[in-house]
Each structure stands twice: as structure tokens, then as C-alpha cells.
């Protein structure tokens, strides 16, 4: 692969006794859209602030296009950041907010006017030049913040929860817009989010952070279909985790679920060793009444609870071994009432062996 645009090498950052980042290494390619996904305290925002230059790492290096940024103050770094609060200057008009970065470059009036107009046109904010930030709606403020940080044409834009402050209804549409702007400007985007759906929908690659370390880094489908660890499997799509032991025939016996699992490939452990298997709730099928229970990749239990989610039902099924499985049933089906005995089955491909 070509030289990466951004490269983090063993970056470590402590805040007092707490470790925000723990020897993290990561690469971002030119024009790539990367989502940093993690819960609060995972270090994802610290990572952005280190790249922007607002914090200095305790150890490690940050390279942009092969150049070490580590000692540079924020105003000398060619990266831009879009803040979660947008941080629009309240005393400046929309025009002056967007022109702020260009003025610092000492461009001429005509050039600034042209570039600002172009930027505002990209996010359909023509005619808003004279408004002050407090006279804009939340969505408009978000777009001003976006183009303000892009108008200098940085090779890399850092976005801290760019959709976090928007209403749920506006989020999806704004997400598509963000994607379109990213493609049009061909800048690399590194977006911090705690929303897995947002990360999966927008990013070319998703980096899942756990306690300051990279848990997994890859394209969204890969992360979803082949989570590497319990944390990733649980964080993305809330997978069921089945604890088992590899049997002599290669099947995984799960006493807590009261079933035996057959993997689509040979298990990554030797017979007798423990193995955790992730199982996506939407891959589980409810067997019709009278249908025979298959010998493997199937379990019986009691339907404990049901929740309607519009596009489907979420069912909690207590298995005979004691474990409770989360099952997503399509919305068209009318599920049996809670308390009924149910039988579940799934394909061998649905079993995902985890590394830990």
C-alpha cells in the first residue's frame, strides 16, 4: 500500500494516573474515511486532540505525510478539526467564521470571497453570509463548522462527534451529506463517534478502541461479520456470546446454552480448549412448530420477553442451559406469546469464533 497520510506509532498519553492511550498505532490512507469507535474513556477524543496538537503525547510519534508533527503547535499543523460543540465564533458572521482560516493564510480579499462563497454553496448556505451563529439552526451551524474547517483544503479533517448534537431525524441525512462532502473534497476524514450505526454507515474503515488500545481495525462489514474479540462483538450489534469447549470431533460444546456448535471452518483451538463464539441476534431463526430440532447449531428454550422495534421484534429466549439469547425476528412474523416454549436454529456461518 502507498505511504499512509497519517501514521501513529506507539502513541501513549496519560492524564494523571489514568491511561487515555496505550501504545496505539494506526494508519490512515489519503482520502479515506475512518471512524474511531469506542465508549467514553476509550481514548478516541484524546487521539483527535493529539493529532490536532492540543495535547502532547507522552510517548510515540504522529506522522503526517511522513513528517513528524509531534513538536508542532496546533496553528502550524496542516490538519483541521471540527469540534463537537462546533466552536463557531459567536461574534463573527457566517462569512467571517468561514473566512477565518483563509485570513490567517494572508489571502487577498477577492480570493477569500470566492473560496468562502464556494464553500457555502457546497453545503447550501448561500445567502446566510451576514447571519451570526445564534441566528442559525443546529443543522446550519453544523454545516458552517464543517466548511469552516474544510475551506483551507486540509489533507486531513478530524471530526469530533460531528452528528452528536443533531436531532435523530437530521442525523442520517447529515451523515449522507458528510459522506458527499468528503468525496467532493477528497480529504481524509477521521471521525470520532460512540454510535456504532454511524460508524458502520459512513466509514471506509472503522477502528474500535478499548481502554486506549486498538481492539480491531478494518472495513465495517469485516468488523461486523468477523469481530475479533468479545468487546468488538458486543460493541457492534450486541452479539450473543456463547462460551464453550472444543470437543474431540471439532464441535464446540456449550453447556450454558445447552447446545453444540458446528463451525463452518475448523475451530482455531485444539480439542479440550475453551472457545467463545459470537452469534448475531438477527442470524437466529425461530423454528416452526413440529419442525425437528437439528443436532447442532440449534437450541430450545422459553420465550421470556418481547419488544417491538418497528422493523422487527427483539426476543429474549432463556435456553435450557440457563443462558439468555437475544434474537431479532423480522417484523412481519407474529411471534408466540411470552412464556411459550420455542426452538431456535442458525447456520454454521453464523458462528464466529473469537480470539479471546
Amino acid at each position, binding site marked *: 500500500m502507498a505511504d499512509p497520510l497519517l501514521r501513529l506509532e506507539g502513541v501513549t498519553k496519560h492524564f494523571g494516573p489514568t491511561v487515555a492511550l496505550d501504545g496505539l498505532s494506526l494508519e490512515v490512507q489519503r482520502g479515506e474515511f475512518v471512524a474511531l469507535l469506542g465508549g467514553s474513556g476509550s481514548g478516541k477524543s484524546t487521539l483527535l486532540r493529539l493529532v490536532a496538537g492540543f495535547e502532547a503525547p507522552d510517548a510515540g510519534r504522529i506522522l503526517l505525510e511522513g513528517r513528524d508533527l509531534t513538536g508542532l*503547535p496546533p*496553528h502550524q499543523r496542516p490538519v483541521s478539526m471540527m469540534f463537537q460543540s462546533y*466552536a463557531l465564533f459567536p461574534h463573527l458572521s457566517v462569512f467571517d467564521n468561514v473566512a477565518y482560516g483563509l485570513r490567517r493564510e494572508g489571502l487577498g480579499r477577492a480570493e477569500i470571497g470566492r473560496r468562502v462563497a464556494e464553500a457555502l454553496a457546497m453545503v447550501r448556505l448561500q445567502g446566510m453570509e451576514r447571519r451570526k451563529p445564534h441566528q442559525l439552526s443546529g443543522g446550519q451551524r453544523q454545516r458552517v463548522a464543517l466548511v469552516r*474547517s474544510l475551506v483551507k483544503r486540509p489533507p486531513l479533517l478530524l471530526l469530533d462527534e460531528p452528528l452528536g448534537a443533531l436531532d435523530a431525524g437530521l442525523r442520517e441525512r447529515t451523515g449522507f451529506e458528510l459522506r458527499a462532502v468528503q468525496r467532493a473534497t477528497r480529504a481524509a476524514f477521521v471521525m470520532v463517534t460512540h454510535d456504532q450505526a454511524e460508524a458502520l454507515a459512513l466509514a471506509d474503515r472503522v477502528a474500535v478502541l478499548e481502554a486506549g488500545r486498538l481492539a480491531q481495525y478494518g472495513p465495517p462489514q469485516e468488523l461486523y461479520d468477523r469481530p475479533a474479540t468479545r468487546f468488538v462483538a458486543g460493541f457492534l450489534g450486541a452479539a450473543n456470546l456463547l462460551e464453550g469447549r472444543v470437543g474431540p470431533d471439532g464441535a464446540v460444546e456449550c453447556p450454558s446454552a445447552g447446545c453444540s456448535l458446528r463451525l463452518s471452518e475448523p475451530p482455531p483451538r485444539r480439542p479440550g480448549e475453551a472457545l467463545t463464539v459470537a452469534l448475531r441476534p438477527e442470524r437466529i431463526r425461530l423454528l416452526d412448530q413440529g419442525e425437528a430440532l437439528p443436532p447442532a447449531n440449534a437450541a430450545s428454550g422459553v420465550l421470556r420477553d418481547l419488544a417491538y422495534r418497528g422493523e422487527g421484534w427483539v426476543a429474549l429466549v432463556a435456553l435450557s442451559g440457563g443462558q439468555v439469547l437475544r434474537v431479532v425476528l423480522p417484523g412481519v412474523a407474529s411471534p408466540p406469546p411470552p412464556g411459550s416454549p420455542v426452538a431456535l436454529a442458525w447456520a454454521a456461518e453464523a458462528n464466529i469464533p473469537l480470539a479471546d
Partner: protein
Amino acid sequence: MRRLLLLAPPWLWLLLFVAAPVLILLAIGLAEPAEGVPPFLPPIGWEAGHPVWQGSGASLATLTEDDWYALAFLRSLRVAGMSAGLCLLLAYPMALGIARARPSRRLPLLLLVLLPFWTGFLPRVGAWIGLLRDGGWVNGVLMGLGLVQEPVPLLYSDAALLIGMVHAYLPFAVLPLTAALLRLDPALEEAAADLGASPFTVFRTVTFPLSLPGAAAGFLLVFIPAAGEFVIPSLLGPPEAQLVGRVLWDEFFQNRDWPLASALAVALLVALILPIRLFQRLEAKP
């Protein structure tokens, strides 16, 4: 009804302690001076069962005709303006230092700013007399070092007056400025730096403009009491400098011309409402 009950106490308070004194002051200002206690005739008298007007605008007219008062006014406003300006110049770096200090340090630093208030007002002003008079500490040090042969006349000068004013009123400028700087979202300064602004440019284009309402509040909090200040000019200032506070005192206690003193007080009040209105317009602008 509940609303009325809730609003009644503050309105009553304002009526009793703000509106009523001003109205009484205005009434005395419109009265004719007279011998006796109190030394004026009420502007509205009672004659044959109905009220009659017996006041006059003579005192108000005197203020405009005799430029003694206009000069005292201008002098007071100039001294107040210079005091407020100097206070702001000194207060800005202090406020910036407090606002940028670690949160655990802020309160101790603010307490240090307020420390002078723990002594009485008069001893603090009096201390300057001890420092600045001919046989005082400052002259003692200057002569002891051989820098001057004769004591330098420091006391009873405009400089001594300004030193006293700035010393007395500095905390009033520091507090609102500190509050304004603390209210500033640090992300705004980070965003400016991120867009390529050097630390000085960040200050010039973001921090300073956004702290202006705090600076205006600090200016007014010094300017308003300084304009009517009586004690500091009397104790430290040049004797020939007649400021409004001094003129007011003299008219009231020396000349016992209550109507003229009241008219002067009302005029000062009106003159000070103007900068307050300007400040409100500045505040209203987000």
C-alpha cells in the same frame, strides 16, 4: 395572583429604597432654599385647602449658568474615566492569569484580589498619605539612595489621586473580567489555533473581543463610584481640584444649600445613566 405576590416584595423594595429616595432628591432639588430645619420650602405647599406650586427651577438653572459646577463635573468624569481605564489595564492581565490558572488555584488568587477589602476603606487611603507625604516612605527611600536632595511633592497631586482610586477600585474591574474570561469556551480558542492563528492572533481575534462585555462591566463598576468619590480626592488629591463629590459635600454641609446639592446629585445620576444605557446595548449584542 401568585405572580403578583411573588413580584410584590422586590417591587416594594425597589420603590422604597430606589425610587422614593430619588423622588425626594428631585423634590428637594426643585425647592426654594430657606432658613430653618430643613433648610428649604417644600416645592408643593398647601394653601386654603388645595395644593399650590411654590418651588423653582433656580437650583437646576444655577448648575447650567455657573460653569464652576460644569467644570467640577467634567473634572470628575475625567478622573473617573482615567481611574477606570487604568484599573482595566491592570486588571486585564490579572484576570487572564486567574482564568488560565489551574482550577484549584483560582479561588486563592481571587481571594488575594479581594484581600484589600479586609481592611477598612479609610486606613487603606490613609496608608497612601504615609507613603507619599514629604517625610513619607517613598521620599525617605529616594533621599536615602541619594536620588533626590529635597523631598518630591507626591501627595496632594493628580497622580496620588489616581493611585488611590486605582488601589481602591481595582477589584471591581478584576472580578467581571475574570468572570467573562472564565465563561469563554476553550474550544473557541482551540478552533482559532486550529485554523492557523498564532497565540497572539487568537487573543486579538477571539479572546479579547469576547471579553469586551466583561471589560465594559468592569469599567462601569469603577467609573460610577469613582465619579462621585469624595474621600479619596479630599485626602490625596490636589486641594484646588474641585470634584463633584467635594462640591456636593460643600453645598450640603458648608453652605446648607440643600436644593442646589440635590439638583447636583440628580444631575450626576442622569450623567451616569448614559454610560449604563450604552453598556446595556453592548450586552444585548451577543
